[in-house]
Structures are given as structure tokens and as C-alpha cells.
């Protein structure tokens, strides 16, 4: 192994692996080789100075036992794991949408729940909740987002 993994136990007894961002894809490839064929979810936590990216993996051969992989992201860019699990496609789009993380190598990285023109990333801690954004549709059928109340439905 050419990378360093730190192992810790979660509060509920889960096994957690911590890995530097540079080696994430390498570790994920190895885990896929070890039989982790089900990527349950990808989530991210904003700690203001860094964003922690969390992967929950499950292995079908051993009763879907769960393994958590965590990595810290400082500059919002990280390698995509869509080449290993198809389910990463929508999960990474969700994290791009909500947290503003950019996944290198994602085939179609765009917002999934919010319209394309939305300003800001809602699940970040510094997101301004006091500013209302209004969504409307232009003549071509594309979503248009603005801060002007007269523009809403």
C-alpha cells in the first residue's frame, strides 16, 4: 500500500477509515476489489475551515456490513468515484448542488435538486438564509433564478 490510512471507531461501533484526499481514489479502488460493491451514500459536512467528505460502503458478501471512509477537502475539489460505483453519479451531483464540491472526472456534473442558476450552496454554514431566491421559467423552458420578488410565480 502506498498510502496511509488512519483507523478509528465511530460512536455506534462503525469502522471509520481516514485518508488524505490525494489517495482517496486509490483506496476506493482497493476497497472495491475487497468486495465493497454497494456505495450506500456520499455526504459532506461543513466544518467552516474544511469540508469533510463521508462515504458509507457496504459489502454484499458479508451481510452488508458497513464501512465509513472520511476525507478532508480544503479547496472544494476531489476525485470522482463514478468509475467504480454508478450510484456515485447522483450522490456527487447532490453534494455539488448542496455543498459546492467539484468532483474531478464526473461525467455530468450539474445541480440535481435546485435549478441551475441558484446562487450559493444551501448546506454550507455560511449560506445566507435571509435572502429569498425566486424561480421562474423563461420562454425556452429553462429555469431562471433571481432575487427580485416580482420575478417569482
Amino acid at each position: 500500500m502506498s498510502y496511509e490510512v488512519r483507523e478509528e471507531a465511530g460512536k455506534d461501533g462503525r469502522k471509520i477509515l481516514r485518508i488524505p484526499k490525494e489517495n482517496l481514489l486509490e483506496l476506493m479502488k482497493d476497497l472495491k476489489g475487497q468486495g465493497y460493491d454497494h456505495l450506500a451514500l456520499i455526504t459532506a459536512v461543513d466544518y467552516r475551515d474544511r469540508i469533510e467528505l463521508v462515504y458509507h460502503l457496504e459489502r454484499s458478501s458479508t451481510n452488508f456490513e458497513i464501512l465509513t471512509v472520511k476525507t478532508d477537502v480544503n479547496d472544494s475539489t476531489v476525485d470522482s468515484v463514478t468509475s467504480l460505483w454508478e450510484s456515485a453519479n447522483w450522490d456527487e451531483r447532490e453534494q455539488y448542488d448542496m455543498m459546492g464540491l467539484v468532483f474531478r472526472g464526473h461525467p455530468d456534473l450539474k445541480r440535481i435538486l435546485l435549478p441551475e442558476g441558484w446562487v450559493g450552496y444551501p448546506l454550507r454554514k455560511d449560506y445566507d438564509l435571509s435572502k429569498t431566491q425566486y424561480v421562474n421559467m423563461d420562454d425556452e423552458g429553462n429555469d431562471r433564478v433571481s432575487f427580485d420578488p416580482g420575478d417569482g410565480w
Partner: protein
Amino acid sequence: MENGLEKKYIELNMGPQHPSTHGVLRLKLLLDGETVKHVEPVIGYLHRNAEKICELDYYCDSLIYFDRMDYVAAMNMEIGYLEAAEKLLAIEPTERVKWIRVVMAELGRIASHLVWAGAFGLDLGMLTPFFYFFEEREKILNIFTEVSGSRQETNYMSIGGVYQDFNDKIIYKIREFLKQFPKKLEEAYSLFVKNDIFISRTKGIGILEPEVALSYGVTGPMLRASGVPYDVRKDAPYLVYDKLNFDIPISKGKDVLSRFIVRFEEMRQSVKIVQQALDKIPDGPYFNPKAKKSLMIRLRGEGDVYARTESPKGEFGVHLIGDGTVKPYRVHVRSPSFKNLSILPYLSRDVLIADMVAISGSIDLVFGEVDR
């Protein structure tokens, strides 16, 4: 192309207001005649960002947003959240509460599958079964009204307990329901499987191989219909599921029909579970005194937990992070419908539009949960 003609595909927009899309799903179709060449689901029309709202609320308040995720199986959503919250706050529900929750979860599962079966029939042009199923579902909703005061968005459970204890009237009502339900279920079941049109519209349609399903993150009846016996109730038991005797139905058919059969078998198993649980409910308090109502908003938790439960749609996971204050720092929900929907473009390659409707119906989509 020959004759110098260029082959062009038609773009068609289906939804977000369309009777066969189960809510506000918008599908961008690329059609060659009646054949679907490509489909792109557009979601987010019901997005409320429940995860952000939960961050702004006390631990006990977040529960009602979970009710509104999978709004046809609110009881199961509540259990999903409480499994995580109770682990984080270190508050164990009492033994009686665990059994009560199992009864409610299985009734919720039956109600959810009944709604699905009714709506699935409508997708395929069968109107009659819908009324059979909704009549039965209404009886379950009456039980929910008796225990919690509301039909769908029950808000019945709370941290460490439930809102009110089971009394004789509630238990009598559940037993009355269980007495007549299996017969009605078989009657409605035969309306489907003895119908040649239904069989020809579902058999061999939407074949999903187990490896593909796992890679796409598909769980629940969809995955079990592809032959993978994954059920959180068996593989990582929560509440008291390890003390109950029930089977996990799987099918090797991998198609729309086998998803239908698996869901029906699950309902029969749920009836079995409720009957056992009703016989075994122990006496005791119906809430944990550490989390009585006056203390509820002062509960603090630190650390991170991931709890998964088996909702009617699949593996429902809640990732909950606390920073030692009275409000959660981050809540993330793994909604099974969201993952199950992502397989629709794969399953809908080169099928007829009518078959695509059958496939999207068999996924069991609830948009409160997909968009959260």
C-alpha cells in the same frame, strides 16, 4: 441514412404534472417513434431542504420533517430518524416502546405497499384494484388516527418513547384489521395475477441484474426482486426484529412482475410480524424518563452516527452529527427512492413508452423522499 434522409429523434417532456409519474417527476424523453432512446429524470420540484431545516431545530422537533419525507409511510420515517437520534443522545427506548414501534412500522409498510399497488394498477390502466387497496389502507389510517390523532403525518413517536400508550381499544382495532385483511389481500392479488393483460405488460419487462442493482445503490423490494436477500431487518437488526420470526421474500425473476410479487409477499410477512408482536408486547412505561417532555429540548449530543432502517422503499439511512449543543450540526438522509430512481435511465433504454411507465411505476417513487 439512405435516401439522403436524416434520422431525427423526437424530444418529449413528460411531467412534472402527469398522472403516471407519481408526483412531480419530470422526464425528458428522446424518442424514436414509440421507443425510448434516452430518458433524463429531472427532480427537485418538491425540494424543501429538510436537512437544513433540521439543523436549525431542536433534536425533538426534526421529527415532523421526517414525517413529510415518505408521506405514505410516516411511521417508518420516524423510526429511521429516532434510531439515529437515540444513538447520538444515548437514550434507549424502553422495551415496550420497541414492540409498539415494530407494530406501527409493519402497519406502515402494509399501508405504503397498498398505495403503491393501487397506483401501479392505475399506471397499467386498471382502475378497480385501486379502490380495494385504498379501502384497506383507510382501515390502517383509522388505527393511526386512534393512536396519534392524525391519519398520514402521524408524529406519533418521540425520542425514547411514543406519544401515547397502546390501550385495549387500539389493540382490538389492530386485531380486527388483521382478521379480515389476508382474505382481502388475496382477493385483490388475484385481480392482478389472473389477468392476462397485466402479466403480459409486466413479465420480462425492466430486467435488472443484481450486480447492476448493487452498483446503482438500489435497495428494498427492487433489489430483492433481483435475487439479493438484503433487508436491514435481518442483516443488521434494529428494535426487536431479531426476536421475531419472519422471512425475507426474494425473487429470481428480476422483472416488473417479480417486484410486484415480492411486495405482496412482504405484506403477508408484515401481517405475521404484527400478530407476533401484539402477542409479545411486554408491560412497562411508554417513554424513557430521561426524555420526558419537559426535558426534551435540552437533550444534547456529540459525535456522529449512521443508522439504517428498512423503510418500505429500501434502506433508509440517517447520518446525524452533533456538536454538543441542543441542535444537530448536520443531518443527511439516504433516501431509498432517490437511489432507486437513478436506475430509471438504465432500465428504460430501447423500451416502449408504455413499458417505461410500468418500470417507473415498479420503482415505488414518493417525491417527498426523493426531493427531501
